[in-house]
């Protein structure tokens, strides 16, 4: 049972949950982005595990795409972070509350 896919999956789940905790608890946009990266990484890990389980390359291919997507996302995200910092002089998402009911 040591090497069962479930074990990997569990680690991935834990990492995923940790990322989620990060997103939820941090107020700094940069930290939130970091946490999201952790989550994406965990998802990628799950794919690798699944790919290994079925001995297919698809899991790894997917991981590659996740990688690319994470990069694109982070680039846009960081550009936004720059704008926020320039406009608000803060990184706190709680300060971004002008759009509300």
């Amino acid at each position: 049972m040591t090497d069962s896919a479930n074990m990997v999956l569990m680690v991935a789940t834990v990492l995923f949950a940790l990322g989620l905790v990060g997103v939820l608890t941090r107020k700094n946009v940069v930290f939130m982005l970091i946490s999201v990266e952790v989550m994406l990484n965990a998802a990628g890990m799950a794919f690798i595990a699944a790919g290994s389980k079925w001995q297919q390359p698809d899991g790894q291919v997917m991981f590659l795409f996740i990688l690319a997507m994470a990069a694109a996302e982070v680039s846009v995200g960081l550009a936004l972070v720059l704008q926020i910092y320039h406009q608000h002089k803060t990184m706190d998402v709680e300060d971004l509350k002008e759009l509300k009911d």
Partner: protein
Amino acid sequence: MNSLLAYIPALPLLGFIILSLFGRRSPKPVIAWVGAGTVCLAALITIAVGVAFMQSTPANGAYSQLLWSWFRVGALSVDINLRVDALTLVFIFIITFVGALIHIYSAFFMWHDRDMARFFASMNLFVCSMLLLVMADNLVLLYLGWEGVGLCSYLLIGFWYEVPSNSRAANKAFLITRIGDTALLIGLFLLFKELGTLNMNAIQQQAPQHFTTGSADIVLITVLLLVGGMGKSAQMPLQTWLPDAMAGPSPVSALIHAATMVTAGVYLIARMHGLFLLSPVTMAIVAIVGAVTLLVAGCSALAQTDIKRILAYSTISQIGYMFLALGVGAWSAAIFHFFTHAFFKALLFLAAGVVIEALHHEHNIFRMGGLRKRMPEVFITFLAGAAALSALPLVTAGFFSKDAILWYSWSSAGGTSVLWFMALVGAFITALYSTRLMLVVFWGEMRTPVHQQPDRGMVIPLIILAFFSITAGFIEWPHNMLHLSLFSDHVQQVLPATVMKRDLPSEWLFQAIATVITLTGVYIGYMLYYGKSGVRWQQSPPLAATRDFFFSGWKFDQLYNFLFVKPFLFLTRVNKSDVIDKLYNGIAQAGLRLNGWFSVSQNGSLRLYIVGVLAGILFIITLQLLL
């Protein structure tokens, strides 16, 4: 003759249409001629029809004319069909003849009123409706006339609508009679349900086969009809509207609230006698209602100070006599009393109208007085009327009709000593208040100056009516005096003869007692009210209290006010803005409240939004765990 029937109601209707469409722009003589002329013409036709009827009674005892089919639905078929039989003839004669006199009188009486056209239009419409009421061959058409007269009564009571109390009185009259009308309507439904027809002849014929005597259905039907009659005829306990109805012009009081409309209840019961005979209970109720009413109203008349109110209570009381007669089965006596009463009460009202007019609209009899010298024609005609009202023996029409009722209230199969005694007390009271009225108004010193003398045109109808008040009774004599029974012979073509008790005491005895009582009443009235003594004796507290009690009409108004009006007004005031609306507004409020709560989630905080996502996934996973 059949084809003439339609003209009788149609002429006044024509008058109404002309006056209501063009009345406002017509000169007064035209109005007067149209208004009075149509009714006079109707009266002439009526007399022609009557003569023809007398000469050769038609085969089935009635003329009839089918105008058009009103509505036919399924089993229900209602036609506009006029029918004149002996009973109807009496009524249409009174309506058109007395009506014509009153119209002539009104032409002068209302000359100076700016709404003369409206007055005559309403009066004509009234005559038309009243004619339809009595000429109807089915109950729906009768109901049409029944409501129509109610409408005209309403319009005319509130004729001087600028005074709020007048329109209130009109409303009251309409509403209280409406209660009766509704009962009548329900009676119609019940009748139709039972018999499948509303044709009065058919009802009379089928009823004995269909109903067993005294069965619940027939009692219910007759009681409902009775309530309808009580409303229109101002019988206890629906009598309170009539005194207030005196707010209308005097001719109105004379025609509608004395001679014709208020006797519609009498007509209805007489017309439906076939049903009533099947229900002894109802007959007893009719008699009791009549007896009680005549006493209550008589007492009230004693205490009134307004001349027209005295006459109004007197009317109630006299109609009580008619009901009493109907209740004991003295059908022709009741109709006879209606016949004589129409003359003398119309006369009294018209005369009162002249007096009131002459004294600058003074209604209080204690501010009148001494008019005997000033207005001799009025005095004499009024005296004739009052005498007839108090039924002075032999010389007045009232005596003949009332005596018959007194006699039958004991002697008929339905009569009892109690009823007789009540009627007797009523006769005493009648004599008393008639005397009081005469003495206070026409004797004594003059308290208000007479500022105008009546027109000739007003006096002539008075004289004619006075003549009939004296002589109308001579066509029907008590059996023990003279064997002359023209009236009852005529009426009994339709109405059954009165069933008598056996072993009765001599009728003379009763006539003697009645005469004594009447004269005693006159005498006591003379003692009390001649000169200035009239006021002093009333000052003692118990008497004053009684007087006030009577004056207020036995506090019926206050009672109804407390029982019905106040609660009703309270109910409507409380619920003015519709409680149910609160429910919907509550729902709307709840929606807005919910919106407020939901809106909190949209506070712009990204972290909350993430929590939302988390909540969603938690929900899904938890559900998965549970399922």
